[in-house]
């Protein structure tokens, strides 16, 4: 019965996503219309445009540039449904192909960043709430405050400087500062596009070690701010719950402290952590733009930045579309988890 309700809830939420995604494309399209320069000229480059006015006219016709906004929008959406996101302004390949090509690197980085931030943040949050005002708590609080104040782009650069100087002294190359793989190695055959997974599938241990060592600094940089946020929310959620009567009752009954904290309290303190985890996916996707450019990882973040710097309209639209889908899906997953945890949400109560 309750599984059925949960399923209904998921479907209801999925349907509610459609207007949001349409809205995002509308905003992106209005943005496109706000561009003061001619996309066809930007696509061909100033030189190419001077040479052939015919090419400009052809692009105007092909991209419906002279049509009114709604007609142009319908044309774009028609193509989008068929998986055609237009040509890239960055490298003239189809945008859909570029996104498929660059997405795995970003997803891999983001995944490991969150994999690091979420458990560490939750654990430290619980620990600091349990041992309130101890030195662990003080440390965690400083980390929570400073962590959100340190810009990702600055942290990445400082880590690079620090590890460059110290590794140069030690003569080690444990933590590489650029790229996804040692330049002397050949990447494993593409299956998922994640080097850490593909190298295992190809049974290539050298590639695997290299891929992992290349991920440590970028993933730490990207995860650091998220960790601070998660730690903070978990701590305050736990503190609120630990002061409640039922926790005292559980303790009075003689339930072991570990069980009180993890079973009784954390279950109920998890709401705040879950909410902030949804936000975390968004900030991590945005942070990818910085981290990828600092550590020389060519994912969709770096692709987007290059597109933004070269007025790549189709690239920007395609990127916004894909990122929104990921972000919204992540939040949907969180909401479903909420529902799974909280029967009031699941059963549509007040």
């Amino acid at each position, binding site marked *: 019965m309750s599984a059925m309700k949960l399923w209904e809830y998921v479907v209801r939420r999925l349907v509610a996503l459609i207007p949001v995604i349409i*809205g995002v494309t509308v905003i992106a399209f209005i943005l496109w219309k706000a561009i003061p320069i001619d996309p066809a000229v930007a696509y061909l480059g100033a030189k190419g445009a001077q040479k052939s006015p015919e090419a400009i006219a052809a692009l105007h016709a092909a991209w419906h540039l002279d049509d009114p906004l709604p007609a142009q929008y319908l044309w774009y959406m028609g193509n989008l449904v068929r998986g055609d996101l237009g040509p890239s302004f960055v490298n003239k390949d189809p945008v859909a192909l570029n996104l498929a090509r660059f997405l795995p690197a970003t997803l891999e980085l983001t995944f490991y960043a969150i994999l690091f931030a979420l458990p560490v943040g939750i654990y430290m949050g619980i620990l600091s709430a349990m041992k309130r005002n101890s030195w662990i708590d003080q440390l965690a609080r400083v980390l929570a405050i400073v962590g959100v104040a340190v810009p990702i782009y600055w942290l990445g650069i400082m880590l690079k400087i620090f590890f460059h100087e110290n590794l140069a002294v030690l003569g080690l190359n444990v933590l590489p500062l650029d790229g996804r793989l040692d330049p002397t190695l050949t990447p494993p055959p593409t299956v998922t596009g994640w080097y850490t997974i593909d190298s295992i599938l190809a049974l290539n241990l050298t590639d695997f070690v290299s891929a992992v060592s290349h991920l440590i600094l970028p993933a730490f940089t990207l995860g650091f701010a998220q960790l601070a946020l998660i730690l903070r929310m978990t701590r305050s959620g736990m503190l609120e719950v630990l002061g409640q009567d039922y926790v005292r009752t559980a303790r009075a009954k003689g339930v072991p402290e570990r069980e009180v904290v993890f079973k009784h309290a954390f279950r109920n303190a998890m709401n705040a952590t879950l909410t902030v985890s949804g936000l975390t996916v968004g900030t991590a996707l945005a942070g990818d733009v910085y981290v990828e450019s600092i550590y020389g990882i060519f994912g969709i973040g770096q692709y987007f930045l290059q597109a933004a710097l070269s007025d790549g309209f189709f690239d920007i639209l395609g990127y*916004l579309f894909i990122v929104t889908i990921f972000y919204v899906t992540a939040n949907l997953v969180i909401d479903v988890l909420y529902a799974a945890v909280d029967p009031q949400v699941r059963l549509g109560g007040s």
Partner: protein
Amino acid sequence: MAVESGEQPFVTWSRVWRRFLQEHASRISEIKYTLFLFRKNRLAVLGLGLILGLIAIALAAPELAFQQPVLVNISGSLQQRWIPSSDVLVGPSWTHPFGTDNFGVDWYSKVLYGASVSLQVGILVVVPASLIGTLLGLLAGFKGGLVEEIIMRITDIFLSIPSLILAIAITAVLGRSITHVMYALIITWWPWYTRLVRGQVLSVKERQFIESAKSVGASPTRLMLHHILPNSVSPVIVQASMDFGYVILTAAGLGFLGLGSAPGTAEWGVMISEGINYLFVAPWMSAFPGLAIVIAVLGFNLLGDGLRDILDPRLRR
């Protein structure tokens, strides 16, 4: 008090003042209590201190700096130019506390000048964004129905794109400049306030004093501006004070990515990105402007955090 004819009303400032104190006694004691709570909150005081220090630096930059920028007229607009010197890539010392860059410009002076840029961006983004957002949130929560539906659906759409990414897209489209960065940040920041204020209004609306105000015939405008708004505003203040920091951080990030101010400008994000080319030769170039951002964000964060505790009705008395 009616004045008898023939007698001059005896009005002095001290009387006016005393009268004012009497009339507003409850409000004044409330403010005094808030100030008392504030002084007790050491982190909030530290935050305020950092912010005041930042403002002082921004105002006094021309006196404190060792080197001044010259304003050059470039195609009709005045732009900052920093005069190069022969002290190229010199490390931190007494003459150059934060070192120099690859043109021999004193980095300490440039960091000081960057403070006013960041504060201006903070004010020019947070004030309009919070005003627009609050207004729309009030409207949505108060009117309900179709108005609410439209406003909240638009808000949802804006909130479903990570804000930095939307800001990059908008700046890319409008063209690279710090003004466009500010527009982009206003566009991405208002929906948070709308969501916040609407939620607040919905809960305040149900309270009893609104019911009693309605029953004595308060007009909708009066209800909204005199009763609902003042009781919904404290989370907005907290959020705004935190957002000052985040806006400074994000604006500098856009500058770092090359979407904001022109290279060579005294803007912290741009300065960090200029240091990237000399990362291992002159690490101070990226380090000091970044440290300035950290301090600024920290100040606003601590203040916001403190204000949250101080204004929280559950923790008061």
